[in-house]
């Protein structure tokens, strides 16, 4: 994100500016290939990132302390009002952004990178390791993930680490499978065979030739998993299986909807709608970006032009 914005900074020192120009040429290039939706997505994510980063500055009250009367409507003092315990809703939104992003990104990074490495190794080594991995992936992908997610997180107890672990368990299969098939395809190229004949070690070939080819695709997948993890965490939290000590947006939804007869009171207007809007913005932004990145990074999709 920082790199992408740096293209607009005026820099005068020659070396730095030359470097930055090359970077900004590249990022600018990618940015110019983004569609309108993609740019909207980038703005949305930037906004949420800002809110998450500057949560302590943006919110006047701590999110987990009683700072007003119960169920105050939005107004002076409390920007978005308070919940039933008198906690400020705007602060909960700010800190909840951190929660959702941390969960989403850590699941995506662990599952994406871990699954990617497993897939590349399996594809490169072949043989029994490959067979074992692929059978595991097959079974994992055939399992009904959400019902199992519910049961597993119920049994592991509600904590962020557990939620992350369970989500990783169900999301590493796809990157592994795709990294493997990519590696298999690349492995057959003559330049890899040539590199091997010249005495290239497996480490050299993997890091120099295979990884750079697989990485862009993994990156797109990681974005997708981020979105999946955020949604899944929200879903679990909404069912009451989230971490009660840390308020994510899903937990806010859960508390609001389990408040008795909330739909017969005006409370939903400031209690239920803010987390709803925040989540929808986040999820749609991620989707727009990953769609565009898919097309920018994957030349086959671009050439096909069907989509």
């Amino acid at each position, binding site marked *: 994100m920082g790199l992408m914005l740096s293209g607009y900074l005026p820099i005068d020192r020659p070396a730095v500016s030359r470097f930055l120009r090359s970077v900004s040429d590249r990022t600018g290039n990618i940015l110019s290939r983004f569609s309108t*939706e993609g740019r909207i997505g980038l703005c949305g994510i930037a906004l949420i990132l800002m809110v998450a980063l500057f949560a302590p500055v943006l919110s006047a009250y701590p999110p987990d302390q009683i700072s007003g009367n119960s169920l105050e409507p939005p107004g002076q003092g409390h920007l978005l009002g308070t919940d039933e315990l008198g906690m400020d809703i705007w602060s909960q939104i700010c800190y909840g952004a951190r929660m959702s992003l941390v969960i989403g990104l850590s699941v995506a990074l662990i599952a994406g990178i871990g699954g990617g490495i497993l897939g590349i190794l399996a594809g490169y080594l072949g043989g029994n390791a490959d067979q074992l991995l692929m059978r595991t992936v*097959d*079974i994992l992908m*055939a*399992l*009904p*993930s*959400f*019902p*199992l997610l*519910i*049961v*597993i997180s*119920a*049994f592991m*107890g509600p904590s962020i680490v557990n939620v992350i672990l369970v989500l990783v368990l169900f999301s590493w299969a796809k990157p592994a499978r795709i990294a493997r098939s990519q590696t298999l395809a690349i492995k057959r190229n003559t330049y890899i065979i040539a590199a091997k004949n010249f005495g290239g070690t497996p480490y050299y070939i993997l890091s120099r030739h295979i990884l750079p080819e697989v990485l862009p695709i993994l990156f797109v997948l990681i974005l997708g998993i981020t*979105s999946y993890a955020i*949604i899944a965490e*929200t*879903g679990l939290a*909404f*069912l*009451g*299986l989230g971490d009660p000590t840390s308020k994510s947006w899903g937990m806010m*939804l859960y508390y609001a*909807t389990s408040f008795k007869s909330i*739909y017969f009171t005006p409370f*939903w207007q400031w209690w*239920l*709608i803010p987390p*709803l809007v925040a*989540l*929808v913005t986040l*999820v*749609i932004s*991620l*989707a*727009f970006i990953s*769609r565009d990145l898919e097309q920018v990074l994957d030349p086959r999709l671009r050439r096909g032009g*069907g*989509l």
Partner: protein
Amino acid sequence: MNKNTRNTLIFRFVITLLVILSINFFLPRMMPGDPFSTTSSDVQGEDIVTMTEEQHQYFISYYGMDLPLHEQFIRYLANMAKGDFGQSIYYKIPVTSVILIHLPWTILIVFCATALSTVAGILIGTISARNRKKISDRFMMTGLIAFSEIPSFLLGIILLLIFCVWLRIFPLAGAVTPFAHYNSVLDEAGDIAHHAFLPVLTLSLAQLTGVYLLTRNTLITVSSKDYIRTAYAKGLGEKIVWTRHALRNALLPVVTRTGFMIGLMMGGAVLVETVFSYPGIGLTLRSAVVNRDYALIQGILLIIAVSILLCNLIVDQVYQRLDPRVAD
């Protein structure tokens, strides 16, 4: 499909089923707490009525929980094979009856939603493919894609707020009006449809875009095929070429997608049913988890898992019938 692939398919089906059965069996047993700590206290967790040690032991042996794990597992597999899912500890009736009470509601909404999203998706997909490269297609695509990214239960809350809270057109909860007396079957069906409408709409909206994109993209791919050109060259009209030649071939992947979708919806239904307090199997699963009702959790998971696996198996068979190219 030759014999070999079919064997692989069935082999995979059996393995997956076994994995689910074992997860199903071991997981709930590893959960903290035991079912009797919930039955012995009231809902709020206050005023705990403690059981004596004797009563506790009685219950444990009554439900066969004092046996070694592997014996329990074998007993469990044998019972599963007989279709006996055990007793629900919370409802105190057989799990099979609890499931039978709630499953029809889930099946109702899942099947209606599948039908609705498939038909609507094919329709919009065709329109979109025919108007490709026009501005209307672009808008339609962006709109639907943005829409599809909203997870079904968030969509459900939005619809609930609009139609039940704000406009007050649809009921907030339940599958039928409580204590209602119907003058005719038609009345009753109307009431059920009235309650099921929003859950069905939510589930199908969430799946619509998948069908739409698939139809649109395969139609576009198919439309550049030689046999389409031949059809035009024969002098067939636009309509016939699109419906008979293009759409028929483009629908093949949609069939696969439909089976796959039923599985996805069974999972999504858990959340959507919670949003609308719709008394299906999803809402029951949630309450079973809350009440640590092992047997019920196992039963529901098994039903959901088996129906998903079966759908995939059936789709493979149907696909084979529809597309002779896959046959060998």
